[in-house]
């Protein structure tokens, strides 16, 4: 039955019909809010759009040529998905936050919504990927042709050999274009998501996996007797045995690593992968399952690759292309149904790739290439068009058709040439050029627009020179002398031994040079200047996505609903735009759309709404055309600077204040300390005073009681007791007088009778009053006075009080019989000094000042009994001397006596 082409065609159309039904159903479900694809398993399956016909048919071909060498293409994505929690998850969140519609949009948006950058990414993607689309056309058309010849195994003729109207690839291209247009551009979605398409892609992933595993099981267990059997037979053939190991050379491992790395990048950066993994993602949490389920899918679809390749090579003569083994092995064993299933599997691999890739590319072409140009032509009157949504859809449809036709033209021109065989990897290497701008942009805030442009241009240039042009040359489109002799005959410029680098395969060679140029230029140019305000804003949005929306910092100015709503309506259609605005109003708690405040928030909303439809760069340009986002004027800059400098001033003031506060605290603490000391001293004073008063009182009382109680006491005893009582009473009154005196002096209420006093006379009088006591005790007292009188301004009685005090101290401390007290008067030209020296025990250094404190008596542990006196004499004396502007201090060498010296100023001699 397969000989009839219409059977195959009917089955194919039936399959496409099923796909369409699934898509339609999923769209309907989504409209009712019950999304079919809001499911992590569907997400993981849809990621398998990675496996195209290049996997479905090509893996076996590659395995037949290089053995295990097909595997890095699938190990790389496994590794990348292990990093998925870092990369993919972050990219998805960034894309959702910024309503990214494609990888071109992503790069453009990251570097300050640059239209130029978006355009460049689009151009690279189209050039890099169109040949890959051609590969799908070729695979479908070849498999169709092979199946048509069933049961004979006939390799299809080279593409250019058949006339155009008989070329099945042309019809495949037309059908796929129609299908994709029906699929992807039925309506313009504000979020650029295609629920139906994703559901269909997930379904296709299942179909191609089932088909491939069916062939694998058939070959391994139907034709042969399990894995071990296939491998055993292969081992026996030397040509096949060497496929089971890889060449043990550095170049072989190097190319293995390069392929792993390349496929790691491709699984994220190919436009279709970005579309499915990022743009179509419903929920960032779905990445969680994809991390293991997608690698598992890749694992399953690769298990049977080597057995099929070996089986084909064992079973077929050398004329059969290994790329067709998947199909020709079932045919050779007359498995019609299986062959048809394989054809459908191949078709699903091709349609999946073509649909997603062309939708992604058409979005990029429309949003980042055509719209910016159209918007620039304001004279075209585009801004005046009431409804742009129709135009947008038309651009996308034409873009899809054009891309598929480009693919067909490439296929037609390349034919069976080299260019198709290696094109999968050449495409991978092209999109790998996005890696520095994308990954750098996600983790480094310093990248600038020029840096990204320079990196992309350099990387793309090197890619084109080392990989694309040589592939053209090998296809015979270009003379190949530049390959062998280098450009202009310069050997160093040979494209695949650039600068003399040899020993690498062409892919590794291209990867090394292109990424070196790319990353180098990206870094070097980025570092030439700091990012400007807009780049910095976008950088924050991308790099710090985890911190949430940073607010609308940088957005200034607003626009009225009346301006923005028509703008959105032009791109989305009036109903959709109005509904979106209404939702926005509702979310802000505003009843009517017209009441929305004309602020930056509204502008931001409108821009992101438009971004979903026409890409961020175009949306920015469009919104800017009505909003006139006010640039920061000089005034604003000044006010910002002002604020900053004020802040700095305030902080400096704060610093000063806190330092002052610290100082004040320290002073307060000291004062408090002093107060406590004073308080303690007061307590001491009171307790000392009462103690001092009690001692004479006790003895007075004791003797009085004795006199009172014992009337028979002898007269002499009575007289002695009365004498003691009188003496103690005198001491008591002296003490009280001194206390009162000191209190008066300290409070400044003492009475002073200041007059000219002869200090010599004061000294003489004082010494005289002590001469009797000295004589009694056997103490020598010596007075040395100048001849003429020494006149000072003071209170005579007070000075006598000081002298008596000092003399009393001296007499008190010297030993009887050997004691000696000297009083000397010395006059200098400004002051007069009075010195009272003794040969007593002296004063210890630590006591030299404390003896001037109240109730502190010196020598308390020198003398066996408590010194007599009140402990108030010296403080009172010091108060008196200081009142008259003099000083009183003590000098002493312990063991050699003490000297008390006071000075008084001499009155001015006018």
């Amino acid at each position, binding site marked *: 039955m397969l000989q009839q082409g219409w059977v195959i065609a009917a089955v194919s159309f039936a399959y496409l019909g099923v796909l369409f039904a699934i898509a339609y159903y999923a769209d309907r479900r989504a409209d009712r809010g019950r999304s079919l694809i809001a499911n992590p398993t569907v997400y993981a399956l849809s990621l398998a759009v990675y496996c195209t016909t290049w996997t479905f048919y090509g893996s076996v071909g590659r395995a037949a040529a290089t053995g*295990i060498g097909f*595997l*890095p293409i699938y*190990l790389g994505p*496994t*590794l990348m*998905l*292990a*990093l*998925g*929690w*870092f990369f993919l998850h972050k990219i998805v969140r960034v894309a959702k936050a910024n309503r990214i519609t494609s990888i071109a949009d992503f790069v453009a948006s990251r570097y300050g919504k640059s239209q130029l950058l978006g355009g460049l990414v689009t151009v690279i993607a189209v050039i890099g990927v169109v040949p890959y689309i051609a590969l799908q056309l070729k695979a479908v058309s070849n498999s169709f042709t092979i199946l048509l010849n069933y049961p004979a195994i006939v390799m299809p003729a080279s593409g250019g050999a058949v006339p155009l109207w008989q070329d099945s690839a042309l019809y495949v291209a037309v059908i796929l274009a129609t299908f994709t247009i029906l699929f992807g551009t039925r309506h313009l979605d504000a979020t650029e998501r295609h629920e139906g398409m994703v559901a269909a892609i997930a379904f296709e992933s299942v179909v191609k996996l089932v088909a491939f595993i069916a062939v694998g099981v058939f070959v391994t267990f139907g034709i042969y007797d*399990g*894995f*071990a*059997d296939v*491998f*055993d037979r292969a*081992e026996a053939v030397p040509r096949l*045995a060497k496929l*089971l*190991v*890889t060449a*043990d050379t550095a170049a072989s*491992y190097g190319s*293995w*690593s390069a392929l*792993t790395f390349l496929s790691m990048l491709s699984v994220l950066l190919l436009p279709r992968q970005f579309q499915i993994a990022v743009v179509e993602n419903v929920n960032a949490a779905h990445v*969680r*399952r994809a*991390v*293991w*389920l997608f*690698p*598992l899918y890749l*694992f399953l679809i*690769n*298990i049977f690759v*080597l057995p099929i390749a070996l089986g084909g090579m064992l079973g077929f003569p050398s004329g059969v292309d290994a790329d067709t083994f998947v199909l020709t092995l079932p045919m050779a064993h007359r498995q019609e149904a299986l062959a048809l299933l394989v054809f459908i599997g191949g078709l699903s691999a091709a349609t999946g790739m073509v649909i997603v890739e062309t939708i992604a590319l058409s979005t990029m072409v429309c949003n980042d290439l055509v719209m910016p140009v159209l918007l620039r032509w304001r004279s075209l009157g585009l801004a005046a068009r009431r409804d742009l949504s129709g135009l947008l859809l038309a651009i996308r449809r034409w873009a899809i058709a054009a891309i598929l036709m480009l693919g067909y033209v490439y296929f037609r021109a390349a034919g069976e040439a080299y260019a198709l065989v290696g094109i999968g990897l050449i495409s991978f290497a092209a999109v790998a050029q996005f890696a520095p701008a994308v990954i750098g942009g996600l983790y480094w805030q310093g990248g600038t627009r020029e840096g990204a442009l320079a990196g992309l241009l350099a990387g793309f240039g090197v890619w084109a020179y080392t990989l694309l042009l040589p592939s053209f040359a090998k296809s015979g489109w270009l003379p190949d002398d530049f390959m062998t002799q280098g450009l202009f005959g310069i050997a160093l410029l040979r494209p695949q031994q650039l600068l003399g680098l040899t020993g690498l395969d062409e892919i590794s060679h291209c990867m090394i040079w292109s990424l070196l140029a790319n990353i180098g230029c990206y870094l070097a140019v980025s570092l030439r200047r700091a990012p400007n305000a807009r780049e910095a804003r976008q950088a924050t949005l991308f790099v710090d996505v985890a911190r949430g929306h940073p607010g609308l910092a940088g957005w200034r100015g607003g626009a009225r609903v009346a301006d923005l709503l028509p703008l959105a309506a032009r791109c989305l259609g009036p109903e959709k735009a109005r509904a979106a605005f209404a939702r926005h109003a509702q979310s802000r708690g505003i009843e009517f759309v017209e009441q929305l405040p004309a602020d930056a928030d509204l502008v931001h909303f409108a821009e992101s709404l438009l971004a979903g439809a026409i890409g961020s760069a175009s949306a920015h340009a469009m919104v800017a055309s009505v909003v006139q986002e006010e640039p920061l004027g000089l005034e604003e800059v000044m006010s910002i600077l002002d604020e900053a400098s004020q802040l700095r001033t305030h902080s400096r003031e704060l610093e000063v204040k806190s330092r002052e506060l610290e100082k004040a605290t320290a002073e307060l603490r000291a004062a408090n300390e002093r107060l406590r000391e004073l308080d303690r001293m007061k307590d001491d004073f009171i307790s000392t005073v009462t103690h001092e008063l009690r001692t004479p009182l006790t003895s007075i009382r004791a003797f009085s009681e004795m006199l009172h109680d014992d009337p028979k006491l002898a007269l002499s005893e009575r007289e002695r007791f009365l004498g003691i009582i009188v003496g103690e009473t005198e001491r008591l009154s002296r003490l009280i007088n001194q206390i009162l005196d000191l209190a008066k002096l300290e409070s400044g209420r003492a009475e002073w009778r200041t007059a000219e006093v002869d200090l010599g006379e004061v000294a003489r009088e004082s010494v005289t009053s002590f001469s009797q006591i000295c004589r009694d005790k056997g103490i020598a007292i010596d007075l040395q006075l100048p001849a003429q009188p020494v006149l000072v301004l003071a209170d005579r009685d007070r000075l006598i009080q000081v002298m008596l005090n000092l003399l009393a101290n001296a007499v008190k401390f010297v030993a009887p019989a050997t004691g000696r007290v000297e009083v000397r008067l010395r006059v200098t030209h400004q002051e007069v000094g009075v010195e009272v020296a003794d040969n007593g025990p002296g004063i210890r250094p630590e006591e030299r000042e404390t003896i001037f404190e109240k109730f502190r008596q010196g020598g308390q542990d020198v003398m066996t009994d408590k010194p007599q006196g009140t402990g108030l004499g010296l403080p009172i004396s010091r108060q008196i001397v200081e009142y008259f502007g003099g000083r009183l201090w003590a000098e002493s060498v312990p063991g050699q006596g003490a000297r008390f010296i006071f000075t008084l100023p001499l009155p001015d001699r006018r």
Partner: protein
Amino acid sequence: MNRSSLTAQRLAALFLLGCALFDYPLLALFNRSSEVFGIPLLYAFLFGSWFALIVLMALLMERRED
């Protein structure tokens, strides 16, 4: 340290493990023409370690967040 950060670190560790398994020099150890259970050694090693890696990732990602 919260759980999601720990999960991310474990995944990163699995990534490093994968890098080690799927590249020189570990690869070279198994690049010999011998067999385990009739399967060529290199083939068995790559698919075996690949599968083990996937199982580890699945266990890590599908654990209930409790």
